[in-house]
């Protein structure tokens, strides 16, 4: 596992998400209403759309194009047309920096 510093905690709005690109891959990093931070694969499993542009409500992110939804803590697909789960990655906060294990 390769731990990478992705951003500062303050870069992410509470109940929001940002996109994080690393190598040739793209990820989404979420800051939950309780300030916990989570990381998933960046693209919706239905079509290659960046989930970081979707609406984050509670612990759910919704694809900005087709409204498929996921629990970003577990990657579970919650609503059609998304039916395949998202991959998730471990996250830690070190001195205000968000680190993800890719």
């Amino acid at each position: 596992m390769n731990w990478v510093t992705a951003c500062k905690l303050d870069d992410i709005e509470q109940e929001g998400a940002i996109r994080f690109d690393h190598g040739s891959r793209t990820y989404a990093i979420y800051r939950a209403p309780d300030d916990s931070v989570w990381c998933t694969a960046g693209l919706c499993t239905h079509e290659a759309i960046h989930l970081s542009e979707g609406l984050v409500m509670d612990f759910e992110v919704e694809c900005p194009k087709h409204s498929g939804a996921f629990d970003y803590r577990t990657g579970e697909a919650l609503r059609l047309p998304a039916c395949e789960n998202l991959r998730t990655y471990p996250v830690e906060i070190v001195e205000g920096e968000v680190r993800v294990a890719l």
Partner: protein
Amino acid sequence: MNGMVIIGAGECGTRAAFALREQGYDGPVTLIGAEAGLPYERPPLSKPDGGQAIRKPICEQAALDAAGIDYRPGMSVEAIDRQTRTLTLTGSSLAYERLLIATGARPRRLTCPGAKLALDFRTHADASAVLVAATGPVAIIGAGLIGMELAALLRGRGIKVTVIEAGPAPLSRAVPPHLATALHDRHIAEGVDFHFGQGIQQINPNGVTLASGDHVAAGLVISAIGVIPDTALAQTAGLATGNGILTDARLATSDPAIFAAGDCAAVAQPGGGHMRLESWRNARDQAQIAARNMLGGTEDFAALHWFWSDQYDLGLQVVGLPKAGQEMVTRPLGDGQISLYLADGLLVAAAGLGPGNSIARDIRLAEMLIAAGSRPDPKVLADPAVGLKALLKTARAA
């Protein structure tokens, strides 16, 4: 045992087939598609991958098998016998308990001389033919969503594009005028030529002769003048039709054993009249309701209309039905903007245009505000410092 039969295996019919199973129905489900191959999504057709038209299946055969859906591709239905509840298929027949007509819509055809030379853009086969033929200058007839999306696609490939429109402006049907103007300006900046208020005298192998006598040189002419609902089967079977197959709010046709949904259905409205919508989301939303009501439900269709369009790097989204006469409040949003529409103080619609999917989040929040029956103060609504999410939480707490 006679089961549920669905005519039309597009987004609507396919969703309905799965929804019947999700509702717990365990009798036979038959899904009849006119085209060969697996059911596929239409929106990606105008977003090809390289030079190839994308054929993205809505579901794999394994998913159809797992759900016990008897999918019959490449099959046409010749007639509906409502007395015996039987369909006549080519060479066979099929009885139904409940029938869903989800035959969609087909391209409206030009009637001018040479109309046959113009290609349609509706099916995967159409998209493939257009992409192969689009090697030199292209003339697109019709400045609606499909025409404008194709113009953007072809300009992106460096092809000279001329758009010819009978009306005075582009996108006049579904897009609010200020956003239609913004998109039009972008097309002009990208080098698209436009002719408005122009009829067609004739189409020939070298291009299009306009009513004015001017000639637009083109090696390929695309016809994108809208669609007409596919009502032929319903009409022949004696079902009530107008601009679409007429249904009540529950999506039942004039025969209670037959339902209609998606592009082909004109649904009774609370204020009177019928409304027919053409969009991906509507096809899916109506499929869900139709499936539940085929199984004895009594749910009215009441989902908000929503659609998107991608042109160049710009994304447009519209929710609800923005109309002249409503109060419009505009919020700046990064490099884009969104407009919200109020009718007698009630939030009823929103429309946004910006790079990529940048306006999607706020349009979704606006949709939730509309669904919550929100009556926001226009001054607060116009203030970019006040987030729509905060407004939604206030509206829901009230």
